[in-house]
């Protein structure tokens, strides 16, 4: 089979050449579909990343009153640690709080304030984010705790929206995969029609069905992989522009997944999906044709050659 690879390539390109208009249209359609698929996938990846980060690391800050001594703070830590729903507690001193703040921003905050305004706090990791509100209430009642904050509290309520968006992206992705598949099936069907005579001759002289299928598989693969590569390029450019924009306009950026990691994930998904859609699409089309007259090359004298 492999020594015929050159022959397959020639046949494939000869075939594409003969229905070049529909090949081009298909290529563009696959490209556009896969581009939107890429956008959907990015969306899904970001939401997933964000939601899982949020859920796994939901932290609560219990800000301690400045009068509390270190020993009292340690006692308080023990109390909090034993509350149900608490996974871990960590003491953050005033100095540490300041350092963390400084780390998170590009502005030198030491220039802005004369003395450290940040209180010491307990950083509490919760087991179940859904029960966070109740837990926050009981911690706030403890002596020595000035205030409890969990900045992500509001996010808790918009979590269903994220899930909804993720769902929509997912269904949209499935729809796009289906649409791409149908496009490829139709085009390969056309390719088969323009090569009906070759197929008949091949069957007649004893080509195996895999040999007959192969040029069409290759054609489907070219659409799938080619479309994936092109749309991946476009998505990559778009995403990096978006990243730049966000980095230049917002100091905090908890939303974005690391660019390289995102592109690596996306490339794998797009190429696998594109390739699979191409191969499955052409297999569907060719099998339908071969089944319809399996090894029945009805070369009748009515079909006079030009």
């Amino acid at each position, binding site marked *: *089979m492999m*020594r*015929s690879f050159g*022959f397959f390539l020639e046949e494939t390109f*000869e075939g594409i050449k003969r229905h070049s208009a529909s090949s081009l249209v298909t290529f563009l359609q696959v490209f556009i579909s896969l581009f939107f698929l890429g956008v959907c996938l990015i969306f899904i990846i970001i939401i997933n990343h964000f939601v899982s980060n949020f859920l796994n690391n939901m932290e609560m800050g219990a800000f301690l009153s400045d009068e509390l001594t270190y020993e009292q703070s340690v006692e308080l830590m023990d109390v909090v640690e034993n509350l149900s729903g608490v996974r871990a507690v960590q003491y953050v001193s005033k100095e540490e709080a300041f350092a963390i703040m400084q780390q998170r921003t590009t502005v030198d905050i030491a220039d802005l304030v004369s003395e450290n305004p940040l209180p010491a706090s307990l950083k509490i990791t919760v087991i179940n984010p859904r029960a966070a509100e109740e837990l926050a209430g009981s911690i706030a009642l403890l002596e020595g705790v000035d205030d409890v904050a969990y900045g992500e509290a509001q996010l808790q309520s918009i979590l269903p929206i994220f899930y909804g968006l993720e769902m929509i992206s997912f269904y949209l992705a499935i729809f796009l995969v289906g649409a791409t598949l149908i496009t490829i099936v139709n085009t390969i069907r056309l390719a088969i029609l323009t090569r009906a*005579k*070759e197929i*008949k*001759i*091949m*069957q*007649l*002289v*004893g*080509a*195996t*069905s895999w*040999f*007959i299928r192969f040029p069409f598989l290759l054609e489907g693969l070219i659409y799938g992989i080619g479309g994936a590569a092109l749309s991946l390029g476009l998505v990559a450019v778009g995403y990096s522009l978006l990243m730049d924009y966000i980095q230049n306009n917002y100091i905090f950026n908890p939303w974005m997944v690391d660019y390289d990691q995102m592109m690596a994930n996306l490339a794998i998904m797009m190429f696998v999906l594109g390739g699979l859609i191409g191969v499955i699409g052409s297999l569907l089309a060719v099998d339908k044709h071969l089944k319809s007259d*399996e*090894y*029945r*090359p*009805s*070369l*009748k*004298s009515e*079909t*006079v*050659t*030009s």
Partner: protein
Amino acid sequence: MPHEPVIHFQRVTLVYPNLVRALEDVELEIGEGEFCFLVGPTGCGKSSLMRCVYMSERPSKGHLRVLGRDITDLPPSRVPHLRRRLGVVFQDFQLLGYKTVAENVAFSLQVIGAPVADIRRKVPLALRMVGLENKAKMRPDELSGGEQQRVAIARAIINAPPILLCDEPTGNLDPDTSRDIVRLLTLINQRGTTVIMATHDAQIVNSFKRRVVYIEDGRVMWDRDQGEYKVDDEKLRLLS
């Protein structure tokens, strides 16, 4: 040791999906190295008989043995391998217009995965056999009908098949060219290939003096060595 026939129809009946009975209880043996004309009125079942041999149709009843093997229930995956041992030629040549003569012939080797060296060696041999060695680079539409049929024959014999099936190979050709084509077929036959040729051409049949199998309504009516075939008989039968 008695030779087994290369083709053996054992009470074969072929019924098409539309219930046309194309072959009816056909009993026919064709031995190795024979040259056999298949004659009969239009629609009598000549093409159908050949289609059974190259497995474009399967007998509805009876058994068919080809090259020492019962192919009645041959699994589809084995069909290509049977076909590699058969050459088939049609009235309408079935050439690819965008390929040269040599490429058309090479195509049948390429699609069965033959090594390039094999193809390089065999194509010129086959073209020389049919007398087209000087037209290898031409395209089919630059050739006469007889020459196009020679290309089709070269393609059919390139793998030196033991059996060559020709369905009205001279149907589109004038009498002189037809004679040349049949002469070529007898040459191929002399090298050991069993040749079966369906035809309406009484002149050809009668001048070459080979075995003649006469079919009517899907039945073998008579079968003679060095037979004669009178179209008048056929017409009379059809009129009555």
